């Protein structure tokens, strides 16, 4: 026994301690518990994995531990079992490793916020559920983690719950995810119907040996329903709409949950269920198309946003699309490879963005930034590493995994490769644009001696004790409800962040630069066999070229000749408006689903059917009965014996009548 249960239980203990007693702890105790529990969990991951030989060529098969029966009904047995294989190993390392770095960063970022202990309790709870998600050895346990991380996401998006936009965004995230879970749960039902169990090992072993003719139809149904679930959690078309809004949460949350770990759960789940997808006719094709479409459309939106976190949010959606493209074209290991490299550079982008926001006193609009290289050199260089990595500069981590995905796409269908390459160019453009708008040029924010810049910051301290003592300003940026609060403490010039924030940035920067040399596809070979033969070299060169062109163009547009973008916007104002407003997808959903559901429920179901229809009939019956009752008053003799007689007589009449009617049929 490796006592795998300790891995998630340690953060859970941290949650329990901070959640129950944190209000009385000092910040340093809260920090120690929150970061310490995750660090111990990380160490336990290392210890377990090395004991299982993951670092030394072992762990070829699945190692699992059984704890107790969770649900038992008839022949259906669902247990709390944890299992580790090579896929899980990677996820465990990412979740606990990156998770620890982000916890450390958050101790600096959140240091001025109210509800401090609550924040870290939620963060630890998230770690618990995320680790349960990747360790669970059956679909329902995966679902526990799946729903649990959704809950934590809900709680943390709504962390600044005094602000309406935070509550709205939290609800939206939870409910859109529930739509995905709807698909997931239907898939679970089908799996039980056809396999009689939810255990991964049994299900996948059976899939392999099933005759294709009998299984193809419902196997495809299972795969597509699982995909619906994955689309919810991993923000793919058509369920991606919650992720950009989720940026209402504090920035470390965006980095941990909405970039590095939780949103990749869908990718993990599809990779985990690869046997089902491989044997389900046509399912992978749809995975690839969904992924490619998401990558492309999200990238176009990313080109136009001004909120730095929004740019990175759409970038996340787009990069997740790449992962699905990889999965869908059969390159499962490349998809997981991209999960890892993306965790490095996207966590870094968000944490860097947080550092920038911190530096500017809560400002998130890039039009009010600029010239920050003077003030925040460490943030700038680390962000540069992340920017180059995601842009696909050769030899950096992003290029390594993205190229594998694109190569696989080319083998699958060349047009997918070309769309992917074009998207890579856009990716390079928008991240470089964000970088240039932030760090080059002159600082465009206001600088005041005693910190009125802080007015833009939304600090929404949470716990009662902290009340409203921070700077507040209800002014939002032009597109509404998306900036989150930070800072609010008085400050003058932008300033570099403290070491607890910059140290994680530096670690992640190194990982973003060299992470591509960790050969994940090789490591995953026992699970996902590698393709035979080499791909043509020009595929890689073209992809790299697209990235470099994107970088160059963005640099030219935003540093060398800053008037060009405005000109382009004016020329193409109609498509620009569409893209800038995210293709009006939210408005479309509001108009077609949400408003009809609410209005219909209110005016039709409640007022008309329930109150006006059913209840009126009931009360009408009552009135008729009253009239009859008035007539029957004379029978009210007050004698119990006569009542009894009437009851018996009535019953007999009723039975006789009923029998007669039944007989007449």
């Amino acid at each position, binding site marked *: 026994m490796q006592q795998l249960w300790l891995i998630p239980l340690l953060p859970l203990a941290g949650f329990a301690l901070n959640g129950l007693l944190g209000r009385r702890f000092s910040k340093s105790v809260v920090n120690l518990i929150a970061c310490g529990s995750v660090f111990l969990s990380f160490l336990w991951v290392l210890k377990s994995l090395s004991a299982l030989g993951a670092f030394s060529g072992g762990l070829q098969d699945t190692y699992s531990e059984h704890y107790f029966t969770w649900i038992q009904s008839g022949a259906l047995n669902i247990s709390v079992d944890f299992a580790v294989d090579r896929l899980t190993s990677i996820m465990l390392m990412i979740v606990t490793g990156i998770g620890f770095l982000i916890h450390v960063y958050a101790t600096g970022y959140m240091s001025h916020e109210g509800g401090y202990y609550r924040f870290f309790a939620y963060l630890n709870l998230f770690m618990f559920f995320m680790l349960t998600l990747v360790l669970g050895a059956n679909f329902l346990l995966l679902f526990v983690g799946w729903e649990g991380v959704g809950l934590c996401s809900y709680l943390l998006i709504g962390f600044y719950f005094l602000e309406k936009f935070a509550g709205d965004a939290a609800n939206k995230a939870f*409910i859109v995810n529930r739509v995905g879970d709807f698909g997931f749960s239907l898939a679970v039902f089908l799996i039980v119907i056809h396999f009689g169990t939810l255990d991964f090992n049994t299900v996948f072993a059976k899939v392999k040996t099933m005759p294709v003719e009998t299984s193809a139809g419902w196997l495809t149904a299972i795969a597509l329903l699982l995909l619906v679930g994955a689309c919810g959690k991993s923000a793919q078309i058509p369920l991606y709409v919650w992720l950009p809004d989720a940026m209402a949460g504090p920035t470390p949350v965006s980095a941990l949950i909405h970039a590095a770990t939780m949103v990749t759960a869908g990718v993990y789940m599809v990779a985990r269920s690869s046997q089902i997808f491989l044997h389900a006719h046509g399912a992978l094709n749809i995975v690839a198309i969904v992924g490619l479409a998401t990558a492309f459309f999200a990238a176009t939106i990313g080109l136009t946003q001004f909120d730095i976190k929004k740019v990175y949010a759409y970038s996340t959606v787009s990069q997740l699309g790449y992962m699905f493209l990889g999965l869908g074209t059969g390159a499962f290991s490349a998809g997981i490879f991209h999960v890892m490299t993306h965790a490095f550079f996207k966590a870094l982008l968000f944490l860097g963005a947080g550092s920038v926001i911190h530096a500017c006193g809560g400002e998130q609009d890039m039009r009010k930034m600029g010239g920050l290289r003077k003030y925040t050199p460490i943030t700038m260089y680390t962000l540069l590493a992340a920017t180059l990595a995601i842009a696909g500069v050769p030899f950096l981590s992003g290029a390594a995994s993205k190229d594998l995905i694109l190569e696989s796409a080319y083998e699958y269908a060349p047009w997918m490769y070309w769309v992917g390459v074009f998207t890579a160019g856009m990716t390079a453009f928008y991240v470089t644009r964000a970088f240039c708008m932030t760090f080059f040029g002159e600082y465009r924010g206001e600088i005041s001696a005693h910190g009125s810049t802080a007015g833009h910051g939304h600090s929404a301290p*949470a716990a*009662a004790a902290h009340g409203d003592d921070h700077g507040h300003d209800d002014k939002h940026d032009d597109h509404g409800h998306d900036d989150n609060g930070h800072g609010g403490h008085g400050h003058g010039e932008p300033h570099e962040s403290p070491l607890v924030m910059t140290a994680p940035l530096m670690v992640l920067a190194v990982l973003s630069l060299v992470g591509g040399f960790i050969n994940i596809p090789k490591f995953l070979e026992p699970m996902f066999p590698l393709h035979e033969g080499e791909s043509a070299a020009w595929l890689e060169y073209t992809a790299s070229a697209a990235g470099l062109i994107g970088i160059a163009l963005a640099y030219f547009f935003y540093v060398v000749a800053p008037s060009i973008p405005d000109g382009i916007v004016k020329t193409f104002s109609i498509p620009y408006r569409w893209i800038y407003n995210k293709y009006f997808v939210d408005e479309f959903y509001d108009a077609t689903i949400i408003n009809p559901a609410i209005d219909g429920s209110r005016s039709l179901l*409640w007022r008309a059917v329930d109150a006006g229809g059913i209840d009126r009939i009931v009360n009408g019956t009552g009135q008729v*009965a009253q009239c009859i009752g008035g007539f029957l008053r004379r029978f009210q003799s007050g004698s119990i014996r006569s009542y009894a007689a009437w009851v018996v007589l009535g*019953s007999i009449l009723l039975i006789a009548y009923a029998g007669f009617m039944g007989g007449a049929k």
Partner: protein
Amino acid sequence: MTLLDAVLFLPLLGFIALLIAPASVSRMAALAISLGIFVVSLGLIGTVTDAPGVYSFVSNSQWIDVPSIKYHVGLDGLSLWLVILTTLLTPIAVLVSWKYIDQRVKLFYAFLILLEFGVIGVFVSLDLFLFYVFWEVSLVPMYFLIGIWGHERRIYAAVKFFLYTMAGSVLMLAAIIYLYSQTGTFDYVAILQKLTTGQVALTAQAQMLLFLAFFLSFAIKVPLFPLHTWLPDAHVEAPTAGSIMLASVMLKMGTYGLVRFCLPLFPETAHKAAPCVVALAVIGIVYGALVALVQPNMKKLVAYSSVSHLGFVVLGIFSFTQQGLDGAVYQMLNHGVSTGALFMLVGYLYERQHSLEISAYGGVATPAPNLAVVFLITTLASIGLPVLNGFVGEYLVLQGASQANFTWAVFAALGVILSACYMLWLYQRTFYGRASHSVSHHITDLNSREWAAALPLVLLMFWMGIYSQSFMPAISTQNALILQRVNGSAAAALQAPVVKEVANAR
């Protein structure tokens, strides 16, 4: 005199004692009595879980000679947890009413304990006439709880509640008398025996009519769409304790009746009726959720959510699968715990702000963080978040339904999405945002008495969600027997569980 007799009659003694005792000690006495009963009832668990498939603690003696009506009671895996739920919730209801009820205190607690007597009686009766008597006995105290201590439209709601239920139970009485005329006994076990062995054969029409009579009476109690309109009114007008008892245990009388009587007595008819019943259940799930979504009144919202949740229970029952039935019975308990807790918490809010309108709240989390946490956990339990109780029941119901007919599960699962919508929206509008002057002025956090009432339910939510094995085996064993009877004798309509292979044994 068995332990079960004690658990059944202690509330009656308590009722009398409360009437005799001076009003000044009513609260303490009611708490002591109800807690005592709860502790005694815990003694029932071991024996029943050892042999959940047979009746334990059976008492069978003549009550009325002509016609022969027996005092025949017993407890099995199906009724055990419902009895425990009742004895647990009664002291909680007492605690919740501590400050809330300040008029006719003595009478209030007396009725509350009398209600416990009636409800326990319903769950343990094995004589149909006795069952009917308890069914009516439980009606009376609830009628007064709503009618005397309710809100403005209490009389309307109480009368509506009473008449609705009476309309159903008269039909049930007729059916019981007809069964007596055919079998010569009111004894449920004997009747079941005679029907099973074919000693007494009912015509198909008779079966259908009898089934309908029982079914209607139970369906009103559940309440199944479209017989639900008494429920929102009753809940809105009822005092907190009344709402808790009504939602948590009285609605379960209906679903219990379906499982205990409707299915085993008339299996073929149940199969025939299943498509219609399931259609109503599924409509209720979605309809209840949609109507809950737009309610401006908290209690109405929770009441409509009950319509939706109980739809799941009926769906599970009429899926005739092991998972469906297990889930349904588990969901009865879950609903008792989490909706009971919801009504309690709504009551707490009402005691502070004197309004049930959601719009009167907002930002409550700031002055009352603990209340916010407990409400959140209850909300999550209610919307079926894994590791909390609701998930286990909901999952099994849907799993069972999907095995019987996949389309049912698809529509019912929509209710899972919608439950998140209405509950989280309620939570957001109540607890998030900035506290208005009125809210921050009136709302205080939980006091220790309120904690004492809430904590057991919260702990149960986790326990039932994480370790269902404490409760499920007893339920499952008894359900398997019921299903054997239902599916066995309805071979034509058999929809056996589609699980093809036994899950690898552990």
